[in-house]
């Protein structure tokens, strides 16, 4: 049973517009959430994170929103750039188990110029 779900396998947006990537989770014990970006033939690269005690975290063009009651988080990229084209993974962790990450299946973002 998938504990972290990214229901959109792909997303296409135009350069300069907003990209919104969504993620849902089922385990209420998760208390820390992260987004990773992955290019082909490379390892995932950390993008942004949010603690369950917050509902928003910003870092430049990237903002993550957390809705605990809905068990939903989203990543907003504004403005989108062609270099943002990659696979984006949502991940969650909880205390214990080495704070290992549970990953979603990823969403492939394509930004066209």
């Amino acid at each position, binding site marked *: 049973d998938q504990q972290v779900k990214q229901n959109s396998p792909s997303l296409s947006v135009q350069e300069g517009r907003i990209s919104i990537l969504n993620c849902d989770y089922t385990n209420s014990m998760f208390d*820390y959430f992260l987004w*990773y970006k992955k290019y082909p033939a490379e*390892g*995932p690269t950390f993008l942004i994170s949010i603690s369950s005690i917050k509902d928003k975290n910003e870092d430049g063009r990237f903002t993550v929103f957390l809705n605990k009651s809905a068990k939903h988080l989203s990543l907003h990229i504004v403005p989108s750039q062609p270099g943002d084209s990659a696979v984006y*993974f949502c991940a969650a962790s909880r205390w214990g188990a*080495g704070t*290992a*990450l549970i990953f979603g*299946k990823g969403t492939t973002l394509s930004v066209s110029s």
Partner: protein
Amino acid sequence: NAGVTQTPKFRVLKTGQSMTLLCAQDMNHEYMYWYRQDPGMGLRLIHYSVGEGTTAKGEVPDGYNVSRLKKQNFLLGLESAAPSQTSVYFCASRGGTERNQPQHFGDGTRLSIL
């Protein structure tokens, strides 16, 4: 600044052969992890370590063994490779216990079992 280095980058094995994947980190991190990624899937945790000399099972540990004899190295072993173990393997490390410290990943090892 190498970060997390995985060796080898590619390998082809025959069913039943054994091999060891090496992960080395130069960030003095306590925590290390091995994940596998299959097509259309997210990364799944195989084993992890919370410090030198410790190991623990993750979500998909069967068919794999690990060792953490030195803090900077985390080895993943396949004793008798099976085609189902064809995958891309990622190693990651993380420092300390602060929750805001993310995992840093290597670039992966592509393993094919024939």
